[in-house]
């Protein structure tokens, strides 16, 4: 049975393991052909920032993977407009195409889900 899954990302990348773990779960849910929405909220919007160069911190730059999600039929990527604005960012600063949503649109989306996973 197909369920509606939402993954909510609220942490910056690299400072903790949450962003990478969430990405692993996104790929797993895709493998089970579920209806997956991925939300970037609060510091989670930083996960999608263009131009990451991680060589000097000896960590893998996983941001290109977000661009490949479409190949796994994950095309519901939502970014909270207020979170972007509070960080001086805009949609064109992000590595992939996303839908920028208002608080009320995001609240509505959350209520529609069967399962919400927080990272």
């Amino acid at each position, binding site marked *: 049975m197909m369920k509606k899954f939402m993954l909510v990302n609220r*942490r*910056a*990348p*690299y*400072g903790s393991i949450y962003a990478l773990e969430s990405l692993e779960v996104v790929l797993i849910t895709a493998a089970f052909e579920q209806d997956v929405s991925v939300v970037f909220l*609060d*510091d989670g919007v*930083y996960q999608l*920032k*263009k*131009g*990451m*160069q*991680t*060589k*000097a*911190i000896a*960590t893998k*730059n996983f*941001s290109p993977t977000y661009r490949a999600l479409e190949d796994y039929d994950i095309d519901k990527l939502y970014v909270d407009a207020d979170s972007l604005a*509070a*960080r*001086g*960012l805009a949609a064109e600063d992000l590595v992939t195409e996303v839908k920028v949503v208002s608080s009320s649109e995001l609240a509505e989306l959350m209520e529609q889900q069967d399962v919400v996973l927080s990272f």
Partner: protein
Amino acid sequence: MLHILNKSPLEKPALDTVVRLARSGALLLIEDAVYAATRGNSAEPKLREAMARLKVYALMPDLQARGMADRLIDGVATVDYEGFVDLVAEQPNCQSWL
């Protein structure tokens, strides 16, 4: 004193506490704290307050990793790992605001 901060200003209140309690010396932003030194961040007024009393540095490798190296607020200096060590050596003591 060297104050070392590693948390994003929009996730944890550590920068507020540094601004409240750090009198003089230097503030080094590392890991997720480097976001505090980027233009347009809503914590910028707080960082400006810190800059009035402390010399503020951001760790360049952490800015680069996060794709934020070209958004540094004017007046914030950058250091690499060697510069980090120099700051620790120059200051009489240090506090890590974990």
